């Protein structure tokens, strides 16, 4: 640890980090564009300049250096004295902001970035209201640089964060700077569009409205959006994300800083993979079948119906012919509640882990790097909580098995009653499992979309999307990360956690935290969950 003095205040920070980072972490709002903690330092925007004290070369006396120094490029050393609250620094910030706006179109009313734009914020805070630039503006073109991204180079401040991202993180090198001086612009190489599995991050690192997400373009003003911290369910990496919604419609997902997991990034698969949440074909109400007769019961009656059916079944067929399949799409809390319920009515029921969707190989970035040197990885396991449900299955003890074993036994008629949880965005039911339904006299199916199992089920319960639930996922490294509810469930549906909470015999409202407290009593893993740190000030 080093002690440094910023604006007469002594702060403690790690040695060797940039002074800018230390100041931002300690709560200063230092304007900056080109600096991003996940990218190399280029010190080119010249906005974060500071004054520093150094010993005089002749007398050795400490004094302010008569020039400004980039705080992003200057590493912290113990005992250093710097300041940002001087006229020299403020003058530079002011003139710098004027320069950034010289050729900027000032089209904030139609710009997607407006409201979360650091050109707006810094102009307001550090710049001046009027520009003295009276001559004609030079307008760089708007360009379509890839299937998912637009580049409005007239708005660009040339921080080159996006270029460095494609060079250093994705390793795909699609973006580059072309031309010189004020005619410089960001561009792609001819015939090589910006199209890589993590390209969406260039939109996030862009501090202004220059790089735009086609998916989000003109959909919503950002000040209408509410962000909720969440975890991406797209693969087992467990990237921390923020769900931006307005009136229960999700408009976009953004990565949250999560050191050691996804750092600052997320993949496009996760970023755009939430669309199923608003699919009209989702099951939105419970269904109860008696023969050919199907009804929609009241949610209040569900716990009783389910308990009664299982109790009846156990009485008739014994408790060892019941199985529960825990989907890796479930939160740990939900899986635990379901296990508690089943083991309550049928102590020797089999607990099986559910279907684990996989696709391809792990993709490491920068492209071509060794797996242990990767800055970002997309994992082939396309579900968020395999390790979580495995842990809960294991701790449940007694009869347990994995999904393949369950399917085999079910086809062989080993079970007469089952509760199968799905909740996958894509089709998932294996053919064998469909065949096995003829043996199942009681099938409770908890899923998001209609499939052969929901058609055969006696009770269908809607599974909700993760943005509608709260709980925690355990990622592939075993880190348990909580996520919060971002939007309300579709009309007629109820959160999985809530009905499982009631079915398991608890009263009142379900909350992930409350259930985790109960779980912690038997599973110490859940006594503390590793939430991503609060968003650092610097992140734009």
């Amino acid at each position, binding site marked *: 640890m080093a002690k440094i003095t910023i604006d007469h205040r002594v702060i403690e920070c790690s040695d060797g980090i940039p002074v800018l980072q230390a100041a931002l972490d300690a709560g200063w709002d230092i304007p900056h564009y080109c600096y991003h903690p996940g990218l190399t330092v280029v010190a080119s925007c010249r906005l974060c300049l500071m004054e520093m004290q150094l010993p005089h070369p002749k007398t050795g006396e400490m004094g302010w250096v008569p020039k400004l120094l980039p705080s992003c490029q200057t590493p912290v050393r113990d005992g250093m004295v710097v300041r940002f609250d001087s006229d020299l620094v403020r003058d530079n910030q002011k003139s710098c902001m004027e320069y950034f706006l010289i050729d900027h179109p000032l089209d904030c009313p139609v710009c997607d970035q407006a409201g979360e734009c650091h050109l707006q914020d810094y102009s307001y805070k550090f710049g001046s209201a009027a520009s003295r630039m009276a001559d004609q503006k030079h307008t760089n073109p708007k360009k379509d640089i890839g299937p998912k991204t637009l580049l409005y180079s007239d708005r660009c401040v040339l921080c080159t964060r996006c270029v460095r991202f494609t060079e250093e993180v994705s390793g795909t090198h699609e973006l580059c700077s072309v031309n010189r*001086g004020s005619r410089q612009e960001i561009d792609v190489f001819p015939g090589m569009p910006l199209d890589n599995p993590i390209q969406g991050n260039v939109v996030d690192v862009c501090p202004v409205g220059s790089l735009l997400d086609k998916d989000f373009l003109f959909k919503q003003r950002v000040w209408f959006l509410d962000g909720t911290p969440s975890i991406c369910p797209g693969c087992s990496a467990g990237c921390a994300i923020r769900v931006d919604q307005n009136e229960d419609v999700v408009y976009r997902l953004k990565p949250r800083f999560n050191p050691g997991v996804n750092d600052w990034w997320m993949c496009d698969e996760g970023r755009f993979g939430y669309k199923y949440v608003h699919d009209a074909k989702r099951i939105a109400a419970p269904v109860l079948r008696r023969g050919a007769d199907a009804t929609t019961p009241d949610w209040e009656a569900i716990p009783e119906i389910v308990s009664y059916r299982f109790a009846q079944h156990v009485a008739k067929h014994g408790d060892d012919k019941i199985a529960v399949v825990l989907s890796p799409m479930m939160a740990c809390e939900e899986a635990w509640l379901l296990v508690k319920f089943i083991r309550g009515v049928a102590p020797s029921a089999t607990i099986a882990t559910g279907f684990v969707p996989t696709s391809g190989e792990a993709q490491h970035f920068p492209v071509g790097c060794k797996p242990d040197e990767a800055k970002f990885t997309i994992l082939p396991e396309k579900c968020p909580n395999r390790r979580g449900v495995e842990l809960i299955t294991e701790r449940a003890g007694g009869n347990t098995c994995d999904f393949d074993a369950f399917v085999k036994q079910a086809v062989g008629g080993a079970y007469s009653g089952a509760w199968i949880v799905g909740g996958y965005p894509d089709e998932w039911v294996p053919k064998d499992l469909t065949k096995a339904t003829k043996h199942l006299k009681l099938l409770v199916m908890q899923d998001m979309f209609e499939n052969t199992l929901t058609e055969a089920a006696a009770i269908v319960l809607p599974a909700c999307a993760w943005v509608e639930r709260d709980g925690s996922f355990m990622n592939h490294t075993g880190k348990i990360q909580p996520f919060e509810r971002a939007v309300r469930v579709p009309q007629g549906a109820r959160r999985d956690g809530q009905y499982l909470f009631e079915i398991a015999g608890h009263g009142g409202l379900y909350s992930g935290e409350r259930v985790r407290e109960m779980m912690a009593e038997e599973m110490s893993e859940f006594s503390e969950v590793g939430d991503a740190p609060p968003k650092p000030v610097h992140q734009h």
Partner: protein
Amino acid sequence: MADYEPVLLRNVGVDGSRTLDVYRARGGYKAAEKVVKDMTADDVIDEVKRAGLRGRGGAGFPAGVKWGFLPKGRKRTLLCVNADESEPPTFCNRVLMEHDPHQVIEGIIIAGYATRAQIAYVYMRVEFHEQFHIMQNAIDEAYAAGLLGKNILGSGYDLEVYVHRGAGAYVCGEETGLIESIEGKRGYPRIKPPFPAVEGLFRMPTVVNNVETLANLPHIIERGADWFLGIGTPSSAGPKLFCVCGPVNRPGCYEAPMTITCEELIMGDAFGRGMTDNLPVKAVFPGGTSMGVITGDELQMKMDFDDPRNFGMLGLGTAAAVVVNNKTDIRAVLRNVARFYALESCGQCTQCREGTNWMYRIASRIEHGAGRIEDLDLIEEVAGRMGMMPGLSICGLPDGATFPIQGIVRKFRGELEEHIANQEPGKAEAVLSVLN
């Protein structure tokens, strides 16, 4: 100065001066032989340090000291020869490479030996087509004669020399811009530290020296540091090449000690031989445009490393003078200078990228007779808000834009104000309203 015997240009005008035979016949490669056979690297550095050879590329940093920054115990060293020569009126490196390429190569061998470099890259601007072939032929000749390559002159010292051609950017004359360009990247100057001596080309310790600096080395070795110090003044020792161009009777590249004044360079019989049509001098950019401007009344300025500062200039620069006569509209000069830096700013640092172009736009408008009196203050302020000296940029290019532009506006303010006062009334407002 009539009795001055040229040293650097001694072979210029001699028949076949480009060939190895002629160069050797006139005493060439003796210094290189002495160095690689009889001297240690430290001997060479000490001799050059003692001679006080200051870099001829513009900044005037002592060459021996620069070599001294190389880390001890390094495994590899690279030498870059800056033959980018892109400062507007400068062409002395061109003369050296065109007429006496072996002198430069001898300098490369000496510098390479002193810095223990194994590879030297001659970074040449792309516009030097002919010079490239001349240089390459000379290098081939030197290789064939065992002066380059493995085991130079049987001494056991190896040096490979490559000529690398640029792609036409002023900023690639900046040493780290040059390094990036050799690496095949965009010529963006690097942030320092680390300095090239520690981490330069391909992340290895690198020395970047100007062609003229290297051309001095054979003479320092051959005749000794004392001879070198006997020319000029102690802080500006040694022979120096001066260029003069513009409306003078005999534009060209001349050699002189650094005691010469600007007036002598323009008027002297051995130099420019006066202005064409005997027109008075209005302004001179005596160090390449980047160093600033002096008026016709300041011609007594000495062309050494120190005196230009007394005239509001950045330094001696490349010692290439562009002369402007009194028939030239100062507004056109201002616009022309501003245009150069607006086009050549690499675009990395905000103040330089936006500021140089802003100044160009203002200067163009003033030239077209649509200036406002407040534009002069504005252009001066913008010019003052860029550059390495106030810490606002990575490289020195914007400083080079500040000095001439601020110099013109300050020293010719009366004339500019007069032009603006005599403009068609209302033109500035009319032009600005059309633009926006």
